[in-house]
């Protein structure tokens, strides 16, 4: 088993004929992902990468029954594209695009929550279940089917964790990049919950970074709800204090948000800390015994 995606996933690509979507869809197809269609308004009826193109998500849903959608459209159109997929009944939506306005996400997040949709991203590398399906922009070749679930706010840092766990032969069950934006569709806690009930996942690696309080909240959740070992690395331990955003930002964070605060909280809640980026793999191996 795995979480969110596997070889039965029927993927739709929104913004399909654009250059980024084309490049990454080719790689996903090569990896064995079942892409059943793409959407580019005005290009319906064409075939792209051997896959049918539709004018709208609704048309695609009727014709090829996708159960997940990945979005590559430019940032200013993401709100529309996510809500279109939601309206067409797709329950797993992944938004890769970077630079989506925060107020757009405020509305989108409220709507997808109401509809019971899992939105991953925006500004994220996507999801991969090694050996089954790749819905994202991560390099497939570094992954290995295995037992470690990986959740991360950062793209290339996820690859580092993946590479290390692959090199040590542990492999991954599913890797989820939740993205680094202020309002992500899915939180650490949402994914932790899924990985706790997944048989294939034996340990969970949570890669966090400074800013916000998502890691602290996840730590509290782990303490009471997660029985599997969790290993965490927090990037930005040596970053100087961020540029001040006036008083309000400092107040709302309640003094939280530094790497030291996050690590302290995670340790208190029983999470194993990889003190350095280089030790994510070895720490995981050590914890798994």
């Amino acid at each position, binding site marked *: 088993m795995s979480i969110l995606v596997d070889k039965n996933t029927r993927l739709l690509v929104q913004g399909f004929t654009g250059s980024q979507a084309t490049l990454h869809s080719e790689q996903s197809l090569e990896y064995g992902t079942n892409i059943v269609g793409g959407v580019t308004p005005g290009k319906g009826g064409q075939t792209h990468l051997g896959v049918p193109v539709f004018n709208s998500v609704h048309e695609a849903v009727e014709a090829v029954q996708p159960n997940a959608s990945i979005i590559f459209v430019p940032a200013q159109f993401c709100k529309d594209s996510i809500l279109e997929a939601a309206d067409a009944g797709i329950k797993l939506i992944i938004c890769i695009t970077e*630079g989506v306005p925060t*107020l757009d996400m405020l509305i989108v997040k409220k709507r997808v929550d109401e509809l019971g949709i899992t939105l991953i991203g925006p500004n994220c590398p996507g999801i991969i279940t090694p050996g089954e399906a790749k819905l994202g922009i991560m390099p497939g070749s570094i992954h290995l089917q295995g037992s470690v679930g990986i959740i991360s706010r950062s793209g290339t*840092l996820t*690859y*580092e964790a993946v*590479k290390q766990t692959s090199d040590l032969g542990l492999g991954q069950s599913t890797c989820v990049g939740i993205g680094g934006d202020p309002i992500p569709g899915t939180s650490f806690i949402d994914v932790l919950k899924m990985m706790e009930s997944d048989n294939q996942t034996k340990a969970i690696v949570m890669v966090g970074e400074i800013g916000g309080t998502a890691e602290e909240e996840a730590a509290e959740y782990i303490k009471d709800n997660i029985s599997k070992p969790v290993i965490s690395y927090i*990037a930005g331990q*040596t970053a100087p204090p961020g540029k001040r955003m006036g*008083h309000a930002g400092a107040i709302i964070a309640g003094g939280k948000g530094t790497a030291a605060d996050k690590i302290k909280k995670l340790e208190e809640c029983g999470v194993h800390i990889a003190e350095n980026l*280089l030790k994510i793999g070895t720490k995981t191996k050590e914890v798994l015994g």
Partner: protein
Amino acid sequence: MNLHEYQGKELFAKFGLPVSKNKVITSADDVVKACREIGGNKWVVKAQVHAGGRGKAGGVKLVSSTEEGIEFANHWLGKRLITYQTDSNGQLVNSILVEECTDIAKELYLSAVIDRGSQRIVFIGSSEGGVNIEEVAENTPEKIIYEPIDPLTGPMGFQSRKISKVLGLEGEQSKQFTKMLPQLTDLFITHDLSLLEINPLVITQGGKLHCLDAKINIDSNAIYRQPEIQAMHDPSQEDPRESEAALNDLSYVSLDGNIGCMVNGAGLAMGTMDTIKYFGGSPANFLDVGGTATQERVSKAFKLILADPEVKVVLVNIFGGIVRCDLIAEGILAAIEEVGVSIPVVVRLEGNNADIGSNILAESSAEIVSLNSLEDAAKKAVELSK
């Protein structure tokens, strides 16, 4: 992106919020005219920089004659104001806001931010305004209210009354605030703000609410749809290297060390800095070249890093996701030749075609140390920086 106080107040006025009569000047010659147009015989003059703590640093003054105003303008225009919120160079003063003097009965605090936790716009209010709001939050959190706004309903009357109570507003003031809250929310949403802060929001001797300061930040992801805000951009308030980087879609923050860093991805860039520190070195910068490290971007990045005279060695750490490492290696070589790099460069390539990339670098004549593991590369860079 940040705005100056005077620009924030222009927006306040546009949305019907109470601000003082004011004029912006960029030359001491305009002080007399500004004071005459505003009227009265006392004015407040305020240096305009993108930083708080101006009052304590001498950048705000009450003047009772135009001569005093001229003296203030002559003193500050063209100089740098250093406050506890700026770095040691301070911020350049290009303009001064001349304002009608307000008789203050009480100072309050009000702000709005996008709260990651509740995923709402949240208003924060306190009866304890002025400069020490952080201490209030720390010592007497009960004096602060956090009121989230539902995007479906917008701010409701009962929410205004809740905030009014904590602010200690009475009668007419509370009614005035009930009118202000939707105006502030409207401003926040219309212009894609990420922060709006009025510190202090004051009650005047006449018993009216009045916005004495205005701090506004705009969501940089939404700037493309805010032409009016784009026109307010003041590059003089930013670190020139950071603005140069932003123009080239690179994310750069200058630091105190001597190891220049070029990394793809913000998380990995921070992780690389951590690794350098771990082995006893000190990073000169944070630099994210982005997901697609093309030759053009790598060249720009090298130029930025080398503009810092402290840099003794450059560490390049690229995890080639979809981008092939052999192409990146060629980009690095071309960039080194184009820019004329004369200090050692340590390169760690990982991911697609990393072996081919490393070979290309090894066979080149440039002074490059190519290593496969981040551990070895970081250690080498630290060694070369000593």
